[in-house]
């Protein structure tokens, strides 16, 4: 393979500006492509359209069709060819348009992406990133609001991350692209347009760390992606009622940061995990199970799961009932003395 250009230095830091998560992701892709010409981007509609969520906006004009292009419409094809490209030494960053449209690629993800490195005793690594605009709450019609994270997180060999804010979105996407492991990079669609002041390039905590984003004494809320904001809102509201809530942004679903979460839970002795996905077999089950395993004698109550009902994701006019809201969180905290 011919030599590649890898610029060592990241672009110099700029003054903080208000940036949406969509903008941060776009900047991360641009900077990563600029820094390393092995980074290539493809998928459905990522070229001239800039992606249905405009995350790749302007990139084809800037980098040309050999660095970012529209593929045929076939997700298994996208992931399967990305495997081959990564084997060659590229760092493909591919997009699945919605969670549910990654399912045609399930076999390539589980039987190859997750297993390649182990199969070859580390001789073949797959440095690739699979971006998935994820979850619901955007009024999407059927099949546009699934939460697929538990499928990926329960597959050994995959690294699964989900940023909740623009700074993490930038930093974690850069880190995911630099990683030698394949990363499922889940982007909570409903938070694409949420803003924060950031100076780019920003480096936040490493991809495998959870973060305490609000300190509190009485309860730990474990949230990720779209539910971090919900948890923070609940915490603000609870403060008025004299309840002090700590919020941990899990950030990375696989691996799980037992240390940060454990420290918080041992402090508050109560934890609830919050996600949009259906409760049964959802990612919260793993969180509840492992937090309990490791901190049983510190817990005053069972780990609470505040999650979607065990039903297919509802149509737009009914989705509000499926989503965890600050009210639902507070109500659940109120009735915490179960089965005593």
């Amino acid at each position: 393979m011919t030599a590649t250009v890898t610029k060592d230095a990241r672009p110099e830091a700029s003054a903080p500006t208000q940036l949406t998560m969509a903008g941060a992701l776009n900047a991360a892709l641009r900077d990563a492509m600029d820094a390393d010409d092995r980074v290539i981007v493809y998928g459905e509609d990522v070229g001239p359209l800039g992606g249905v969520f405009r995350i790749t906006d302007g990139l084809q004009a800037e980098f040309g069709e050999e660095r970012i292009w529209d593929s045929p419409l076939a997700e298994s094809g996208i992931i399967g060819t990305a495997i081959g490209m990564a084997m060659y030494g590229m760092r493909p960053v591919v997009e699945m348009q919605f969670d549910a449209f990654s399912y045609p690629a399930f076999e390539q993800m589980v039987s190859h992406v997750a297993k390649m490195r182990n199969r070859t005793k580390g001789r073949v690594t797959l440095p690739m990133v699979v971006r998935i605009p994820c979850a619901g709450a955007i009024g999407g019609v059927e099949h546009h609001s699934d939460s697929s994270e538990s499928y990926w997180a329960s597959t050994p060999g995959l690294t699964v991350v989900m940023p909740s804010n623009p700074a993490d979105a930038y930093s974690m996407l850069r880190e995911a692209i630099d990683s030698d492991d394949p990363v499922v990079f889940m982007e909570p669609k409903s938070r694409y347009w949420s803003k924060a002041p950031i100076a780019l390039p920003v480096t936040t905590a490493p991809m495998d760390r959870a973060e305490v984003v609000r300190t509190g004494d009485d309860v730990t809320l474990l949230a990720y992606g779209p539910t971090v904001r919900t948890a923070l809102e609940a915490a603000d509201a609870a403060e008025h009622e004299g309840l002090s809530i700590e919020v941990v942004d899990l950030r990375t679903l696989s691996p799980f940061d037992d240390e940060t979460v454990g420290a918080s839970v041992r402090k508050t002795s109560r934890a609830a995990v919050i996600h949009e996905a259906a409760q049964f077999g959802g990612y919260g089950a793993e969180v509840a199970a492992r937090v309990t395993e490791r901190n049983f004698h510190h817990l005053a109550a069972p780990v609470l799961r505040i999650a979607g009902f065990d039903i297919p994701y509802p149509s737009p006019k009914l989705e509000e009932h499926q989503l965890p809201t600050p009210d639902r969180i507070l109500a659940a905290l109120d009735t915490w003395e179960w089965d005593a």
Partner: protein
Amino acid sequence: MSHDGTMSLNVEHAPTRTLPSEKPLRLLDNAGHAVTGHTTGGFSLPDTETLLGLYRKMVVARRFDVQVTALTKQGRLATYPSAYGQEACEIGAVASLDRADWLFPTYRDSIALLTRGIAPADILQSFRGDWHNGYDQHEFRAAAQATPLATQALHAVGLAHAARLRRDPIVALTFLGDGATSEGDAHEAFNFAAVWQTPTVFIVQNNQFAISVPLEKQTRAATLADKAVGYGMPGFHVDGNDVAAMYAITHAAVERARAGGGPTLIEGVTYRIEPHTNSDDPSRYRAARDVEHWKRRDPIERLEKYLVSEGALTETLRAEITDEAEGLAAATREVMTAEAELDPLELFDHVYARPRAALAAQRAALAAELAAAGTHQEDAR
């Protein structure tokens, strides 16, 4: 069916092994003149009555489509994928089905469902965001509009095969987009249909785009109909803005399938005039003049020219059809402006046939929540 009317499951043809005409087959040219010669592929122009029927359906469908697009812009629907300009494909294909035949549509094919007799409010229930599917599939023999691309083609093959096993002489017709032909499921559907010789007709509506991605990034085949030979089934490359050709060729395929002759792949070459959906911005990926070019190839105008030149489309008839179309548009406006009553507790009622205790508990929890918020009558169950 064989001569004595019984259907054999072991029709043994030599596999079809010819390539479709590279020039799309057509029976009416863009000026509305009947075409002769080999571009007809040996098919003949349907009679005037049939064409008038198709014309009426297309006009009504167009008016409906325009109305729904307008309602969507007003925020009455969550989304609407328009089939403006694709009426010849949609109507030509679906009009060739019998009442007992099945249709497997995509999100794009609302007007085919309309033609099939389904009420606007029921078709649009999903796009309005009320529930995922709003019509009785068994009553209308029309499956839910499929979003996961190409998946429905396999359902059409399975249903057709089941019917065949039951010696039930029905046909299943499914629509696919040009983009959807790239999916693995399209391939598997073509192959299962051909191997099992199921009575399935595949209509590929090649409207040149998959959202923003143009055909040349989707395939390198000369025509999408060229794929048929690789499955040993007949393929037809058809002018998809010529409803006469779409109808005649689909009808022949449907009857061939019904008679036990197996599946057919028909590519209708057309164009998506509107954005992919209301949230799309086509200025990013195509030139307005391309759209204008295709607007000058309008399928309704083409047929209209022919029918007028034949003296078949009188002013009275035209007025009658306009009335029908406007009536439907008004009715659509009306139902789509009224809010549907939705019961959030119904979210739990259809997930399983066999009741689940855990789900009943979740239902009760939501009921309590709604009652506490005062937005819902406490549930009696």
